[in-house]
């Protein structure tokens, strides 16, 4: 097992454990912190995939901007924890609907894992030996030529979201 494989398993374990913590944690503040950990490990995985640009945007945009927004709202609303669930694992799942949801999401998880593990490696002609494309120049050129329309549409989306967020969160008098 070479170094990159070890790094992959370490990062994968951190991501999965931190994500489980996000879902299992009752205090939203800890949830946000664990999610930042998870995103950091994901950035490590992107580096392993020869995508340093994506790794850096992951850190700057996700861990830096979006998570700070979440943290800001958690602090602003000041609701330390949701109402305590009754003790015991099954009782904590609450009414029957919650149990059904647990079973359904477990089935969904098994289904996706099964389906994705059947992905045929032959579909990817250049597998393993694929030429590494980590050049930021190439990303920029492709983004501003082939995907120029989508890029401009995104800027309008951001503008609309910004105005919408201000209008929705404003205190009406």
């Amino acid at each position: 097992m070479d170094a990159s494989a070890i790094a992959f398993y370490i990062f994968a374990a951190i991501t999965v454990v931190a994500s489980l913590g996000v879902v299992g944690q009752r205090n939203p503040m800890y949830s946000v912190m664990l999610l930042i950990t998870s995103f950091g490990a994901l950035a490590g995985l992107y580096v392993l995939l020869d995508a340093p640009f994506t790794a850096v945007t992951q850190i700057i945009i996700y861990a830096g901007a979006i998570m700070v927004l979440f943290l800001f709202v958690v602090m602003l609303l000041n609701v330390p924890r949701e109402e305590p669930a009754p003790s015991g694992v099954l009782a904590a799942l609450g009414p029957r609907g919650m149990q059904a949801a647990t079973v359904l999401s477990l089935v969904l998880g098994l289904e996706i894992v099964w389906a994705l593990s059947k992905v045929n490696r032959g579909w990817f002609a250049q597998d393993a030996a694929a030429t590494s494309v980590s050049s930021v120049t190439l990303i920029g050129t492709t983004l501003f030529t082939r995907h120029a329309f989508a890029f401009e549409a995104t800027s309008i989306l951001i503008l609309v979201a910004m105005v919408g967020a201000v209008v929705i969160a404003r205190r009406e008098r």
Partner: protein
Amino acid sequence: MIPLNHYLILSAILFAIGTTGVFLRRNLITMLLSVEIMLNAVNLTFVAVGRYLGTVDGQIITFFVMTVAAAEAAVGLALVISLFRHRETLNPDAFSSLKW
């Protein structure tokens, strides 16, 4: 080099964890965080498949997903603040005035 399947299975596990969070948690903020986990699982798939195809498109789609996630977080959190102001709770079961 790690086989592509490992990345796909990892992202499947992450996606399932996110789905579980949306189903099980009764806190709007944690539910939004779970949606972020799901978005990141999909991002990982895009980057991994793009890497193994030898194209840059996976990373570009990831870039767009991040932008949409930022917009979604901004509007979603504004809604959360506005809802909290009306009901003083984050439990989604409390917001049922449109149900009959």
